[in-house]
């Protein structure tokens, strides 16, 4: 049981970080960022390049943060340089633009990091293992879950308890009125994209020792993050948390109990939720028809 729970929680933590980024960007910009999986993959690759320098554990633990920051900056460049050109033309074009970026990133990654899968479990060995009652698990796995939880708490604090968070929430509620109050909405959009892409890149960096990366992981991660997004309710961070835990644990137990169809179960949950409650578990009333 314990290994499944730990694996499920790892998976849930990563999904939560990626899907929260996706849901924040949707909440503020009304864009479903199809390139979000690419920012995750970018995070793994950048962390890999950073950890080439030395086997020092501190560097390996810092790598996800640096990877997240770089992914966030690329995110800002993407939003300011490309995405802002299609604002106001409808969500179709915003969606298709981010869809096109998946392919651009895919080949850019291939050019920089090659086509072979990469991985670096050094830090897992350095940190050793820890005994949890009946089971022995790598300490790094526990660290991953804890750091994701801390980040989730920080995010909540940023959005609910700080002035910046208030401005972000106000922009999500009504960009025009917020702008009338003297807030530079463009700045909020850029910040949101940084935050969302940072979370994806950071999650990617965290997974370097566990799964590593390969070309194609971007689309796999995107699809799972989309599942979390719609199951939890688009724009709801609370929903992302609940849905990540649900999907993470279902997938982890599914792999050990129904190894053949675990992914199908995940999609089935999504379809059922969407039929029963079209706006997702914690979604608003944004569904027409």
């Amino acid at each position: 049981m314990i290994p499944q729970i730990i694996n499920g929680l790892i998976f849930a933590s990563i999904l939560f970080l990626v899907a929260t980024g996706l849901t924040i960007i949707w909440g503020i910009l009304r864009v479903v960022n199809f390139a979000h999986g690419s920012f995750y993959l970018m995070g793994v690759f950048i962390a890999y390049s950073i950890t080439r320098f030395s086997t020092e554990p501190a560097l390996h633990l810092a790598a996800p943060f640096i990877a997240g920051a770089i992914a966030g900056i690329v995110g800002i460049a993407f939003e300011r340089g490309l995405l802002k050109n299609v604002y106001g033309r409808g969500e179709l074009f915003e969606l298709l633009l981010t869809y096109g970026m998946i392919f651009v990133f895919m080949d850019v990654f291939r050019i920089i990091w090659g086509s072979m899968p990469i991985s670096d479990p050094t830090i897992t060995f350095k940190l050793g293992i820890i005994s949890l009652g009946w089971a022995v698990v790598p300490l790094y796995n526990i660290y991953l879950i804890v750091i994701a939880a801390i980040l989730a708490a920080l995010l909540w604090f940023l959005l609910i308890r700080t002035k910046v968070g208030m401005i972000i929430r106000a922009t999500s509620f009504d960009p025009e009125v917020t702008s009338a109050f003297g807030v530079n909405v463009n700045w909020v959009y850029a910040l949101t994209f940084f935050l969302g892409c940072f979370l994806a890149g950071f999650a990617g960096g965290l997974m370097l020792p566990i799964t590593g990366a390969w070309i194609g992981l971007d689309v796999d991660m995107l699809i799972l993050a989309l599942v979390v997004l719609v199951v939890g309710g688009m724009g709801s961070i609370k929903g992302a948390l609940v849905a990540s835990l649900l999907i993470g644990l279902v997938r982890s137990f599914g792999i050990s109990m129904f190894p053949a169809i675990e992914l199908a179960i995940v999609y089935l949950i999504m379809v059922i939720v969407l039929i029963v409650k079209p706006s997702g578990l914690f979604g608003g009333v944004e569904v027409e028809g």
Partner: protein
Amino acid sequence: MKDRKIFLYIPLVIVLFIIPFGGEYVTYLTGLALVFGIAALSLNVLLGYTGLLSFGHALFFGCGAYSAGLLIKHFNITSLEILLPVSIAASVGLAVLVGLICVRHTRIYFTMLTIAISQLFYALTHKLRPITGGDDGIRIYSVHIFGHEVASITEFYYYILATFFVSLFCLRIILRSPFGLTLQAIRDSELRARFAGVSIMTYRLAAFTTSGLFAGIAGAMYALFLGQISPDDVLSVMRSGEFVAMTLLGGYTSFIGPIVGSFLFTYLKAIISSAALYWYLVFGILIVSIVIFVPTGLMGEIEKRWRIG
């Protein structure tokens, strides 16, 4: 004006007929482009005419392909005159079921739902190895038509060409009919259409089913033409995305836009991949540029400039 436009297409039709003289590879590519053209046209029934973006259209393409593939694999039926109608029936059935769930939603929610449901079937096809062959897919060794074995890629190319023209003709009539016009009215203003007494859901479901039907035809012809199908090839979200990209490339505001897009896509991909260049990079930049600079696509732009729409 209208009559002159038809003459513009005659040289193109003649070129399509003499394509096999260009060699097997050109025939193969053009056959693919025609099949994808049918699929992209069917997608555009939803995107261009109904205003709904399906990102899971490979589900119906794959349904057509797998209906044909499974009949051949398990029942050893290789006659095109049986395979095609069964594929159509299966795709229509699936489209009605999936449509009942999807058409209650619009915009991004519709898109998400199409992704979810297509992924569900993709995962099932992947995992139900005893039935579907899993990720190895299904091989198709021979196809018959009225007892006669299809001997060459060239011969099958002409069946595809015939299917293409029939599909094109039917879709043209459907979309020009009061039904097609009603769809466009709903797309432009759902509220106004509702006030005019139109049952929105019924029309959307009918559009969804029509779309699924032609995607199924395309899928079945694709499977038989290629002789090899796998879930990653015919059911994946990447394939769905390609149909969207073709439609966008050619122009979703134009009736023949998706066909222009499918030809552009297929030939560009073949040329760039064979030159060992980075196809995905070119493809991605192409989509991004189209979205930013020519959102109505190639044909949309041409029709706007030349006023031949």
